[in-house]
């Protein structure tokens, strides 16, 4: 495996780039493994990577029904932040941010984690109260957070419409400077390459169609490429988690909704940070290519089809033009949808299940990209040790029975 570096680029340039090896193999699945991950999104691939790198489990495979990263990983607006309200979530997401900071080097793959700051805007007194509450909680939890009043918001992001006479004027904003965006595809590819290098089989075009369960214990899966056995199976299938749970005879408190995003045509740099608003609902950043990356809201209906409705796009674009008036004459280049798995408390499930050896990591809903490294890291721990890490202990399935919910409706209200 060639190490990626400027040097290796120069060396390969001399040879017409003919010698680069594949980033990950495309192996035939073996009949059995020590563990299986279902779902080749960022979370599944990260789980496999950390199982191999942290827990020495290398005879494992990731089974992906399509192409890796083709689910929400490759469809999201890539906002990364950890300014969540509850202690349990701020710890989980902040741990992920710690991992993000070293991820490109860890994987030897540039995931372009760009810490350009994320602002959450307040448009009314209620927003101000709730957002400041979050800032204060973040500060006490050691998560970086600042509160900006309107003038400071305007100074930090000059292209934002801070007119006090606006329909929903901006009163202030939270700012997390450590937060930012990353390159989504690179995360999937980087983890796949890292896992592959450690012996993990990344198997694409392999859809799981059923579980083999005996005496309350999982033994393997049926797939479109045959039966594959393993004593430990982690399911990381985002929008399809409830489908997978049904196959295993479980029920999850998850609803799947379409969530849309869109990009503008590329323009020269104009927006240097990430802006999110709940009341004027939109979230926006500018990609390195120059496109404005714009997140919409979730459609209200349940669906597994990766397309949303046009009214949601309209609402989003109104909000965009209102907050960033310069966009009125720019154009939408492309829009798409993903299927997000929403939990009643807007927090994930990273948990053992009543079926021994079967684990679920899901419910990330509109905002799980930011957690990718952390999610994989704790889920690998949970699978390897058959018990949760202290970071994900609060995120069990049982919490919906006990009522010990991790309510993040405020922090997750803007889909992101």
């Amino acid at each position, binding site marked *: 495996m060639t190490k990626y570096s400027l040097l290796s680029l120069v060396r390969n340039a001399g040879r017409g780039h003919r010698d680069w090896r594949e980033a990950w193999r495309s192996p035939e699945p073996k009949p059995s493994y020590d563990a299986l991950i279902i779902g080749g999104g960022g979370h599944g691939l990260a789980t496999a990577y950390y199982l191999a790198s942290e827990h020495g489990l290398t005879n494992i495979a990731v089974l992906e029904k399509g192409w890796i990263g083709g689910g929400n990983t490759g469809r999201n607006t890539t906002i990364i932040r950890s300014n969540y309200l509850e202690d349990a979530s701020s710890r989980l997401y902040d741990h992920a941010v710690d991992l993000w900071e070293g991820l490109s080097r860890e994987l*030897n793959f540039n995931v372009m984690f760009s810490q350009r700051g994320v602002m959450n805007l307040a448009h009314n007194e209620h927003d101000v109260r709730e957002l400041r509450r979050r800032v204060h909680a973040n500060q006490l939890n050691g998560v970086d957070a600042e509160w900006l009043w309107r003038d400071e918001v305007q100074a930090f992001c000059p292209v934002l419409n801070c007119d006090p006479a606006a*329909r929903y004027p901006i009163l202030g904003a939270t700012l997390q400077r450590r937060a930012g965006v990353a390159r989504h595809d690179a995360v999937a590819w980087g983890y796949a390459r890292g896992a592959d290098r450690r012996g993990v089989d990344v198997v694409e075009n392999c859809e799981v169609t059923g579980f083999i369960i005996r005496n309350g214990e999982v033994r393997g899966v049926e797939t479109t490429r045959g039966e594959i056995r393993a004593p430990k199976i982690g399911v990381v299938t985002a929008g399809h988690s409830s489908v997978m749970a049904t196959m295993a005879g479980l029920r999850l408190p998850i609803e799947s909704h379409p969530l849309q995003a869109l990009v503008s045509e590329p323009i020269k740099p104009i927006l240097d940070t990430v802006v999110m608003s709940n009341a004027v609902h939109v979230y926006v950043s500018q990609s*390195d290519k120059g496109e404005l990356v714009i997140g919409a809201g979730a459609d209200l209906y349940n669906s597994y089809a990766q397309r949303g409705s046009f009214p949601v796009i309209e609402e989003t674009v109104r909000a965009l033009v209102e907050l960033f008036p310069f966009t009125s004459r720019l154009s939408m280049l492309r829009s798409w949808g993903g299927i997000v798995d929403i939990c009643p408390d807007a927090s994930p499930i990273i948990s053992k299940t009543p079926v021994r050896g079967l684990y679920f990591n899901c419910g990330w809903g509109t905002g799980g990209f930011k957690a990718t490294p952390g999610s994989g890291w704790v889920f690998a721990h949970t699978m390897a040790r058959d018990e949760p890490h202290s970071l994900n202990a609060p995120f069990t399935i049982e919490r919906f029975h006990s009522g010990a919910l991790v309510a993040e409706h405020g922090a997750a209200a803007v889909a992101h």
Partner: protein
Amino acid sequence: MSGRLKSGGAIDRDEVLRFHFDDREYFGHPGDTLASALLANGVRLMGRSFKYHRPRGLLAAGAEEPNALVRLRSGRAAEPNLRATMVELYDGLVAESQNRWPTLRFDVGEVNSLFAPLFPAGFYYKTFMWPASAWKHYEWAIRRFAGLGRAPEPGDPDVYEHRHAHCDVLVIGGGPAGLAAARRATRAGARVILVDEGAAFGGSLRGNGQAIDDAPGLDWVADVVADIEAAADAVALPRTTAIGYHDHNYVTLLERVGDHLPRPESGQPRRRLWKVRARRVVLATGAIERPMVLADNDRPGVMLASAVQSYLNRQAVKVGERVAITTNNDSAYDVAVQLKAAGVAVPALIDLREEVAPALAERLAAQGIELLLARAVVQVHGKYGVKGVDVMRLAPDGERVSGEVRRLDCDALAMSGGWNPTVHLFSQSGGRLAFDETLGAFLPGTGGQPAAVVGAAAGRFDLAACLADGDAAGLAALEAAGITRKGRMPQGPAAEASTAGTPPRNLWQVPTGPGKAATAKRFVDLQNDVTASDLALAAREGYRSIEHVKRYTTTGMGTDQGKTSNVNALGIVAGTLGQEISAVGTTTFRPPYTPATFGAIAGRHTGLNLDPIRRTPMQAWHEAHGAVFEPVGQWLRPRYYPRAGEDMAAAVNREVKATRTSLGLLDATTLGKIDIQGQDAAEFLNRIYTNGWKRLGVGRCRYGLMLHEDGMVFDDGVTARLGENHFHMTTTSGNAGAVLSWLESWLQTEWPELRVYCNSVTEQSAVAGVSGPNARLLMESLGGDLDFSPEAFPFMTWQDGTLAGLPARVFRVSFTGELSYEINVAASLGTALWETLMRAGAAWDITPFGTEAMHVLRAEVGFIIVGQETDGTVTPIDLGLEAMVSGAKDFIGKRSLARADTARGNRRQLVGLLPEDPYLVVPEGAQIVERAGMAPPVPMIGHVTSSYFSPNLGQAFAMALVEGGGARHGETVQVCWDGRSAPAKLCPPKFLDPDGSRARA
């Protein structure tokens, strides 16, 4: 040199239009696009590519153009990234080139080309990782190189509109197939909408000069369009692009109403977004020609053959003096003949195929055009414009070229690599595509919605077949729409059927020549600078799915969304992997078809029209009396009424004090009001609210709490029983819509057996709340038929009557903790009521108060505000409202209250909070901890929900949710915010009148 012919073309030579491109002045004519006008002026260099900043000219003549992107107009009216091929010329047009510095000709960015070997596909994933924190510096530089045009200044001078429409048949594409369909449907009286993205109808007929019914094709086009325009229920929209095909035959159209003018006509929008619901859709979207992937195929002057033909026929522009042609199919032969006829030299037609139909060869021979079969162009010469091409013999396997290198002198190269049916909208509609090996293209397959795909969009390229196809689709659409045909149906149009042709030779990349030419770039995606070797590299590196290839190389991700590059890319990847194209897959096409202006999508819903503003009938009075407003949901509510010299604190203190000691007046109209009727209404409320409703007497009111299924408080309010089966519910102002939906969802999905009907009546009445110890005196002074004595009109009852001559319904309820009456009158009487109260109340110095004073007043007596004391995690028990929770009956959320964590004793509970510094109003949202000075992570035990200064108490006070707080009254905690902390004492959350006697007075 390109230039204008003396005659021909659909331009008006009598009128001269002046325009500027990059500060130079040029002239054109009506009928020109910016692209054709520049060509006519001999301008070839129109842009720079994204990555290598290579000089670029036009590739196409339509919406698929990847290279010639310009910034049109300037300042606030500027619009970047417009395709010059779609910009209609008008007098005074100003455009500039993009992505170059300092000028288009001398672009510093071109140094990137020198380092091209270091910049293969995806190079950035492999580097810029050292040192660890340096990415932000690399990124800064990369971002400046990337991006295309500059954004305009904010403040768009134009407006945009939306229009909704329904029709029987929506025909997308006004070429021969679409026109034939529209003509058929219109004649039968169907409601027809015909759209075309071009400035005029005719599609391919505009560019290729074919005949229909033995007359020029454009005559037939004019007839059909005239027919449609004359029909009562049909409309023909030029300059209109179907951008999105959504579920249930819902299609969005973007009409360019004023773009072809210096500025939109007065009263007209610049663009209009149509939202069309069609019974049937006819997709007659035509086909887009494919470039050939050959060495240096990006040089200005290398163009699609159909574009060369289009410029020639539409605008009488010749793209060069000597135009070589290379093709893999029959369509380019016409181009050769027409060029020649226009006096342009055609040094040769270079066909990849081993043989062609003799008739074709003869046509060329008759014109004296040399035909080179089984030959390929292996190199294009010239940097800023084509100077010549090298031709070699192509081996039968297409993998190699051999023999002599023959240099042809030419100043342009027209190429045709085959045709891709425009299946984007079909794919958006949910249809699956099927790869046709012969055509080497994707055709519409199965699935999709009630639509027909006709003509070239369905892979039928012959004019006669297109006409027949369209005519049949028109008929089928009529049948599907249930329209019985009226009158005599005309004959379908006729055109000469073309002779059976030779299938194309699909060669996804043309081999390069020997020597230096071997490493020349063969571009696939011209805009994003993706070459054949980039694609091969991606496939070699394991990016096998076409989606991976796209994302890794960025092919097809430009503003043209790969209209000319996607299929070539697929072919090359399939070839590299040794797979069938169908196995590599196609990408799903996503809306919009071409980039869609945000302003048009937003329409009029911008600025103050972003969201409707709801105003109460008394709004004008509030404004006239200097109220400061705050948004509450869609409402604007008076927050306080400052008098001269008062700041907010002073005004609020005055309002609070006046209400407590004498008389205050609140506009309470915004409170949600829901009328609930039906024989099961009481049973329904019993299930919705935590407390019991069945025994509430008619004439009485009760406070209710509703929970979500999880046991958490969702809304509260006072509901009155108007009759045995009739209730009047009030909700919080911001939540009224959500509560109504909540009620309806239970009625419609869970309890359809209940006979209950809910109606929002919020806006039917205006509500004035009078509050204060002198409230009764005021009410009595108004005159009317109501007895306000405590015995006749006790607390928590309501009565109908006349008040100062106004028919009113009065509720004796209280949110301020004072003796209060909420007077409801018809909305139209709101101002009259308000003014009456102000006049009559003068005796007690009546003081209008806003939401801020209301908050203080209710907090003093410990009333909660949903959404402030609660946040979706708070139970009634947490609020100390266990008395509201019935043990006797079931209600929504009851079961959840018994869950282990929800029933826990030390949950966060509502407490009062008195800061030790009596003048310190701690911020709402401040956190509460046990001790000051701890290092993070600091355990938090609660947070401040409300915090005010009370002029009645003479001190600051707050409410908070604190772990186990109910049992900790008297203890001191620390309130923390922004690195500060302050001690405060916990107390019961009632600061005044704990037994509530004032309200009951």
